[in-house]
């Protein structure tokens, strides 16, 4: 029972952990504990969608007559898609386009030999070029170009056989050269598309969305500035300066914060699958800028603002939603939306205007004279195309179609590459039931991870994992399949299965069979023993048995529940094959009723 409840929650979570690391795992844990809140939201959404249907009719007649419940809500309008209803009852549409900065996973930086490593001592990973020491020149890292090519292919973009690098000038302490090398005139690829699922949210609808990819450009990351408000000092760390970035620019075809978060989440997974980017937002490996404007349905685009540097899925959703409602309120109040850059404050949940210097900045673009045009060999692009790994969407549909796994569980497994690896390894061991294997992963293992705040890593990836040994747990595919098969053969019950899996996750070195024997987990199938158990229950529940016997046929099932609960509370239930128990119980009840 508990498991089914969990499952429902699990697929609903915005982050189901895995590659996104401990910080976000804690976040999902908090979500899990607020079951009640989630339920209430669903109820509200149910209510909303029913009222919307009614309101649409009146709206069509030109008589907007909105229920008070809808004010300040986002609804799904079958005609216009996602629509906002303001406090004054007006209908608005929000237009959102995202730009994603993905740090390229490479050993060294984009143009220098300094290592690309996270969390290193300040200014310890800086080449002379990164510090803009005069006379140094950029040398393009081919690994970064390949990451760009692969990403372009995975997003169905046209790869430009010749692309150029440009300098984008602005003064900032963490930009030592005074310019960023980027691709302004001709980027590495253009015109792609990206398709992703949007999960149920306030608007209670699960759907597939496609966003047009305008272009992908390769550019440098900047350093980091730390402002010390007390001393008035500004400290600069250049470790990040010069790391390769893929900037993916999407068209303004999103309408809702959670859509942008869903895009970012799926993109992180795709980039991770492509080995193009680590995909961890908590490390700043993936950062989202959102361009946001609102308009009344059917009108031209409104003036947009840009909210920069959103570094969690939560921030993406919340910042966009805040900004949309802020703009609606401002416009209805007769104010003008200015084309400006805003930042999002996680503490207050608000967006605030950044200093005006960003507003009408002229970046004085100029071709980068130290880098020849980037010329790609069509043969190389073909090779990359042929060697593209399986993408998450394909993996999900494979799990669903080939192994009959429920779609939500497919999502959980594919969202965590280690789960997917484990599952595919399990397939090699020919489990009796694929669903059971999948369930063990998303229920028993997932529960364990949340409980102990651990990260699951598939057995073969332990050595290459960048997490510390204390953080990670694993289980071999062989053990998992063995345990699953024992359960399918009804030699153990679910409780025993859970114990086995948890023991292995704890690092128990005994084999599954040894564990079953030593922990005495084998199910009791002795009918005589079980018969005694049934008799005892019937005796202790005699009054309930009477109620059962006298109940009308339709009501009988309900009267059976307390009897079963009593049986479950009995310590013997732990080890007894409850299928046989039920069997005997029903026989006994049957025979008693016939006697009567």
């Amino acid at each position, binding site marked *: 029972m508990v498991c089914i409840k969990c499952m429902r929650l699990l697929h609903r979570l915005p982050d189901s952990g895995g590659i996104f690391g401990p910080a976000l795992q804690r976040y999902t844990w908090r979500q899990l504990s607020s079951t009640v809140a989630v339920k209430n939201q669903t109820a509200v959404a149910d209510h909303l969608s029913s009222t919307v249907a009614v309101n649409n009719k009146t709206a069509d007649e030109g008589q907007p007559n909105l229920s008070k419940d809808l004010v300040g809500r986002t609804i799904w309008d079958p005609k216009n898609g996602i629509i906002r209803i303001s406090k004054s009852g007006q209908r608005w549409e929000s237009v959102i386009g995202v730009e994603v900065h993905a740090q390229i996973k490479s050993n060294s930086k984009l143009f220098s030999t300094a290592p690309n490593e996270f969390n290193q001592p300040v200014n310890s990973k800086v080449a002379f070029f990164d510090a*803009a020491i005069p*006379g140094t020149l950029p*040398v393009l890292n081919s690994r970064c170009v390949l990451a760009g090519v692969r990403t372009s292919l995975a997003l169905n973009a046209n790869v430009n056989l010749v692309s150029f690098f440009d300098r984008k000038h602005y003064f900032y*302490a963490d930009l030592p050269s*005074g310019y960023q090398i980027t691709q302004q005139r001709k980027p590495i690829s253009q015109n792609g598309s990206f398709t992703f699922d949007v999960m149920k949210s306030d608007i209670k609808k699960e759907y597939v969305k496609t966003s047009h990819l305008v272009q992908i450009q390769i550019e440098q990351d900047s350093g980091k500035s730390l402002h010390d408000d007390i001393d008035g000092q500004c400290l600069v760390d250049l470790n990040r300066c010069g790391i390769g970035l893929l900037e993916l620019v999407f068209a303004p075809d999103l309408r809702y914060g959670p859509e942008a978060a869903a895009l970012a989440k799926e993109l992180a997974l795709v980039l991770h699958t492509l080995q193009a980017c680590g995909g961890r937002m908590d490390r700043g490996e993936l950062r989202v800028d959102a361009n946001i404007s609102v308009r009344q349905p059917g009108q031209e685009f409104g003036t947009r603002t840009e909210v920069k540097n959103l570094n969690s899925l939560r921030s993406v959703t919340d910042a966009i939603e805040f900004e949309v409602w802020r703009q609606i309120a401002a416009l209805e109040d007769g104010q003008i939306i200015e084309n400006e850059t805003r930042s999002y404050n996680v503490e207050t949940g608000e967006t605030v205007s950044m200093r005006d210097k960003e507003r009408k900045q002229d970046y004085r*673009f100029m071709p980068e004279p130290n880098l020849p045009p980037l010329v790609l060999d069509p043969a190389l692009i073909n090779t990359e195309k042929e060697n593209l790994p399986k993408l998450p969407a394909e993996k999900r549909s494979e799990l669903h179609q080939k192994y009959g796994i429920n779609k939500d569980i497919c999502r959980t497994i594919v969202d965590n590459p280690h789960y997917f690896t484990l599952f595919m390894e399990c397939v090699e061991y020919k489990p009796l039931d694929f669903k059971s294997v999948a369930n063990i992963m998303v229920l028993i293992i997932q529960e364990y991870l949340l409980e102990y705040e651990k990260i699951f890593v598939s057995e073969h990836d332990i050595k290459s994992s960048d997490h510390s040994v204390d953080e990670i747990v694993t289980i071999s595919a062989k053990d998992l399949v063995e345990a699953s098969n024992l359960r399918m053969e009804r030699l153990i019950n679910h409780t025993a299965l859970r114990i086995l899996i948890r023991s292995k996750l704890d690092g128990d070195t005994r084999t599954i069979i040894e564990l079953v024997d030593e922990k005495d987990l084998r199910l009791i199938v002795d009918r005589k023993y079980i018969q005694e158990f049934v008799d005892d229950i019937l005796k202790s529940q005699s009054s309930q048995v009477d109620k059962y016997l006298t109940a009308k046929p339709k009501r009988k099932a309900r009267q059976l529940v307390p009897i079963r609960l009593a049986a479950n509370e009995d310590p013997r239930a732990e080890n007894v094959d409850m299928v046989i128990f039920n069997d005997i119980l029903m026989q006994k009840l049957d025979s008693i009723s016939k006697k009567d």
Partner: protein
Amino acid sequence: KDEFLEAPRPLEGVTVAVKDNFCVTGTRTSCGSRMLDNFTAPYTATVVERSQKAGGIVIGKTNLDEFAMGSGTVDSYCGPTKNIWRSGIKYKLKTKHGTDVNDGSLTTEKLADSWPVAGGSSGGTAVAVAAGAATVGLGSDTGGSVRIPAAWCGIPSLKPSYGALSRHGLIPLVNSLDVPGLMARNVQDLQIYFDVLRGRDQFDSTSVDLKDCDNEEVELENIKLGVPQEYFCEGMSDEVIKSVSDMCNLFSNNGVNIDSVSLPHTDMAVPCYSVLNPCEVASNMARYDGVEFGLAGSDTSYNEAMAASSRSQGFNDVVRGRILAGNYFLLRRHYDEYYLQALKVRRLIQNDFLEAFKSVDYLLTPVTLTDAPSFADFTAQDNRTQTAKQDHCTQPVNLAGLPAVTVPICLSGYNRTTAGSEEGAKRRSLPLSVQLIGPYGSDKKLLRIARWIEERVDFPTLVLCD
């Protein structure tokens, strides 16, 4: 080391003067600017490293116009550089055979009330090599910065094809035009030095291995020389024109075909350069904000204030002026009109050369408009005017990325303006050179021809007196 005594490397023990815009580990690399007065380079430029690996000994860093912006070496934070010729330093003139030059019309005395400029921006290196302080010298040439001082100081020089020598470690002026340039006391040394330095460098993505460069044979009887008529511009002295025509005679007397050619867009080279140069300067100078290195301005109240004060205190007027102009040209609303237009003009200039090389093999031109002007005359006009004037014959070569060699051929003659005075009793006696321009990658062939010239002219050697 003993091993080097037995098998000496190409530059074993040879002294090298390095222009102070090449980084050399542990030495101050100032670019002649207050901005980098405190900058000690943490790495060595590829061309310097290759010199050292070949046995060369860097004996010093030499003066230049601030960030190589100038053609006189008069705009340096360290002060101007005097030419070795006629600036008051005692020297003798010797013939190739080591005997004293016996020509009563020549003088080695200091110019009246002034001294000749060294030329620039690589003036320091030119003087060091001309004076014999260094056997070979490294300069950088963006619009003539090696060829002009070499011509005025009476030594041969090479401006290689773009990319033939690595720019890694050369503090840039205009990245797309800059090349490290070489100077030596004779052409043979240039040949040796060029072979030591050339070749692809992994730290410079624009560096190349020149394919045709290994074949340096030139059959003089079969080549055709072109003399571009546009190079003889207003303000060019008669004797410079005469020096080129003397060379033409020398060549034709030796069976070389000579023809007049036209490079119609030559006059646009300097205007084109006056846009491209400030644009790249504005961009390249953006890094000098006082944070990582260089002069940190006194106003540290906030980021922008610190950058502004560092830059206004660290750069001279010339640099600041070019930064201002460059940022103006690069503004979105001006980009097409200036920068893009300049790039198109650059292409036209390059096409001029390609067209000319269809009918002739090499070009013979003047280097400068006159012999070395006196400091007083030179500084009577501002940096911009002087650069625009002096770069007329050298600038187009950089825009086209071609190789060029200069060779000194004679000393200048009587000065009309000073005729009759005591000063006018003797010849000006300052060096005059000619320039050879070849197709891309013909660097070594040009050096071959230059050596042929060198063998046939009686250019005296300058020897310092104790």
